């Protein structure tokens, strides 16, 4: 057993050395964002009465409760200040810990580097142990620094420690989930995908439980639910943390057990033999792009059917929840003017739009993966021109996002129409989803433009998307000037259903998307590959 762990220390140092920029950067951005949010909120709600009102507005709005969880103590300034960050910070910690685990286990194995190390004095369990330890160190450091940062803003010490522990705990839980994924899947891309899928699922399970009367127990069926049940700044239920820690330990043990049952480089999900000849429609750049993307697209489509059904299904409860004037005001401000339900739907479809844009970035970034792996060389050395090759990948991103918007729109629309009995309601909701597309394509255009400069710059798409998300969520809180908030394409999307449709922003966004994409393709044509 001890022999199996030989070399773990060396591997940990190697991993920390490789991540010495990534980890501090990620953690400091998060700590700073959390601290500035806390500072801004403290000024915003000076009296108990103002907090009560704001907390009630959040708790009475199912869409906000679904997105962020509920506020368990409406008088607590900390709970109010951190309402968005509990979920955001938790998701950030989970993604970071999961990514690190996969990066230092499956990704290393895939690259063949573990084979080099495995031949030296490194025990069989050492790589996974090292990956988990590094992810654990990161999670705990993230939680501790956030807790310290929050204390300096004047929030209560116990609550600050509790919320930091929540994030450390969810980080540990998802490091363990990623460790299992890394045993099941053979590629790091799939292992990461599997981890993100579990993350999305547990987020949605918690969201449905929190926002649906009678399904509250669901919040106890998800690691994200446990995190919220710690109730930082609102009672600080410390024992719940043991649930997260125990889960992390148990799942990690499962990962080691699974790892013992497979060979180096292999996955537990076996590779089945495939066709010996290619079907004719595979043999074009577009056919290849479709073939490479269809699995991911199918998974995303299923997720969006579920998401759409939840969004549309919860809409019916909105009216009954909203019985105070302040909450009505709040939801009206969030969305359009016509009806509360419309405003709710418009707000939710806005969130759906951002998530679809994440798929768009993911799909467009295949350009980068193809070029960096050298597969682009092989394609571009055939009769396929650069425009056709890059255009095909980008077309898949555009077509895929369109399909997802329609899927989410129809799923939400049908769920809503079943409640109201009016088929036209469904079409309004589909319209609200489709109207997000121009903004989504602007983000895809940003990937294309950055890719035109160089493959390694294409990740700017993620940076831009996170920036737009933060501008939308926190821009008003930080009282940023309108023109800064307007940098986000999502700020220009008409709030449908509810508001009047405006053609000008749509045309402007489409124009921006076209210009960005054209600029990217033109630059790509003139640069070196690889």
């Amino acid at each position: 057993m001890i022999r199996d762990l030989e070399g773990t220390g060396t591997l940990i140092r190697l991993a920390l050395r490789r991540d010495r920029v990534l980890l501090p950067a990620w953690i400091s951005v998060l700590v700073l964002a959390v601290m500035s949010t806390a500072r801004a909120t403290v000024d915003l709600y000076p009296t108990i009465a103002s907090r009560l009102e704001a907390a009630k507005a959040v708790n009475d709005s199912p869409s906000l409760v679904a997105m962020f969880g509920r506020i368990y103590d409406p008088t607590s300034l900390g709970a109010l200040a951190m309402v968005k960050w509990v979920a955001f910070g938790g998701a950030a910690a989970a993604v970071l810990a999961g990514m690190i685990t996969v990066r230092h286990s499956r990704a290393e194995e895939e690259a063949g580097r573990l084979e080099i190390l495995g031949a030296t004095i490194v025990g069989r369990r050492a790589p996974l142990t090292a990956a988990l330890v590094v992810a654990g160190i990161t999670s705990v450091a993230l939680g501790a620094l956030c807790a310290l940062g929050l204390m300096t803003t004047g929030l209560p010490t116990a609550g600050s420690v509790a919320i930091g522990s929540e994030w450390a705990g969810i980080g540990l839980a998802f490091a363990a989930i990623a460790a299992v994924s890394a045993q099941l899947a053979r590629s790091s891309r799939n292992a990461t995908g599997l981890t993100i899928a579990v993350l999305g699922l547990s987020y949605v399970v918690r969201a449905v439980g929190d926002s649906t009367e009678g399904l509250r127990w669901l919040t106890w069926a998800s690691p994200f639910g446990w995190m919220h049940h710690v109730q930082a700044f609102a009672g600080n239920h410390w024992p719940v943390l043991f649930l997260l820690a125990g889960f992390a330990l148990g799942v990690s043990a499962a990962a080691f057990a699974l790892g013992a049952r497979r060979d180096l480089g292999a996955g537990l999900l076996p590779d089945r033999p495939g066709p010996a000849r290619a079907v004719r429609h595979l043999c074009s750049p577009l056919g290849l792009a479709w073939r490479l993307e269809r699995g991911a697209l199918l998974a995303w489509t299923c997720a969006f059917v579920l998401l759409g059904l939840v969004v549309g299904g919860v809409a019916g409860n909105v009216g009954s929840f909203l019985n105070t004037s302040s909450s009505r005001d709040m939801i009206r401000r969030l969305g359009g003017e016509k009806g509360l339900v419309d405003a709710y739907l418009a707000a939710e479809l806005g969130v759906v739009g951002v998530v679809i844009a994440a798929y768009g970035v993911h799909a467009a970034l295949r350009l980068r993966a193809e070029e960096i792996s050298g597969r682009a060389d092989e394609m571009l050395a055939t009769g396929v021109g650069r425009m056709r090759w890059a255009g095909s990948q980008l077309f898949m991103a555009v077509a895929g996002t369109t399909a997802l918007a329609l899927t989410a729109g129809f799923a939400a629309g049908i769920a809503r129409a079943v409640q109201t009995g009016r088929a036209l309601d469904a079409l309004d909701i589909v319209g609200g989803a489709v109207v997000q597309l121009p903004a989504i394509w602007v983000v895809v255009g940003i990937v294309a433009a950055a890719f035109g400069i160089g493959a390694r710059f294409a990740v700017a798409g993620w940076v831009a998307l996170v920036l737009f998300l933060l501008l939308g969520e926190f821009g008003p809180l930080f009282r940023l000037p309108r023109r800064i908030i307007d940098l986000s394409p999502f700020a220009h999307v008409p709030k449908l259903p509810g508001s009047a449709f405006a053609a000008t922003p749509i045309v402007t966004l489409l124009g921006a998307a076209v210009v960005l994409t054209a600029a990217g393709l033109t630059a790509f044509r003139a640069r070196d590959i690889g």
Partner: protein
Amino acid sequence: MSIAEAMPIRVAGLRKSFGHTVALDGLDLEVRSGEVHGFLGPNGSGKSTTIRVLLGLLRADGGTVELLGGDPWREGAALHRRLAYVPGDVALWPELTGGEVIDLLGRLRGGLDSRRRAELVERFELDPTKKGRSYSKGNRQKVALVAALAADVELLLLDEPTAGLDPLMEQLFREVIADERGGGRTVLLSSHILSEVEALCDRVSIIRQGVTVETGTLAELRHLTRTTVTAEVIEPPVGLDSLIGVHDLDVQDLVQDLGTHGTRVHCHVDAPHLGEVLRCLTEAGISSLTSRPPTLEDLFLRHYATPAADERAADPYES
């Protein structure tokens, strides 16, 4: 036959830099139609960069590049239908089978000869139903080779194609390339496996630090270099040490059991001066003579051993 038909690849004074690193510094390369042309150079000498410029993947900073009579940068896609490329490190799509990749690449080129494809898959003992991620390096190489060799094209650009193959497969590769030459295809074979180049290539270009240092048939290259001469002569040779073209001369008196005297001469001779050396030795009375032509390895090592050695070696015929 036009120039373009006679010479599918014509590169002159090609320059390419990446930032401050100069990869190609005035490289020349001419490949004649129907020949197998060896492209020799150590790691990092610019072989792959040259091939990537020829494919239009990189833009040349200077010089002229002509591929199949066209400009690869501007007319890449059209020209690519007439050639096939095998990279040194083949990357496959993890979710596609080897068979699918062969068909995909083949059809995106000039088209695929199905009978030839089947024959090659069998000869290379390739399992075309396995997914890209489960192939070893050698098997990935085979997938790319089969795709290139089965494609209906006139030019093959092979960048160290046998790097991951076992000796049996390497032998098979040689047979297949020999067939290709018989079929009239032009092949540019970059390699640093000397025996392979010696066995397969009609002509060779040797590059070093982005410059072509030698080019020609193997016979020509040998002519340009030194022959090792070992002789036993009766009298000590007169004037051998003053001849130009003689290097590393070593003259030793031989003392034998019966007291017979003789002299053993060992030296390296530049090929153009071989006649004068032989005349001198004949005058001294040859009792035995061996001469060994340079191997490709000698040629190669002469250019790469050390810069100083290289200058000394290059001296006689460059001055």
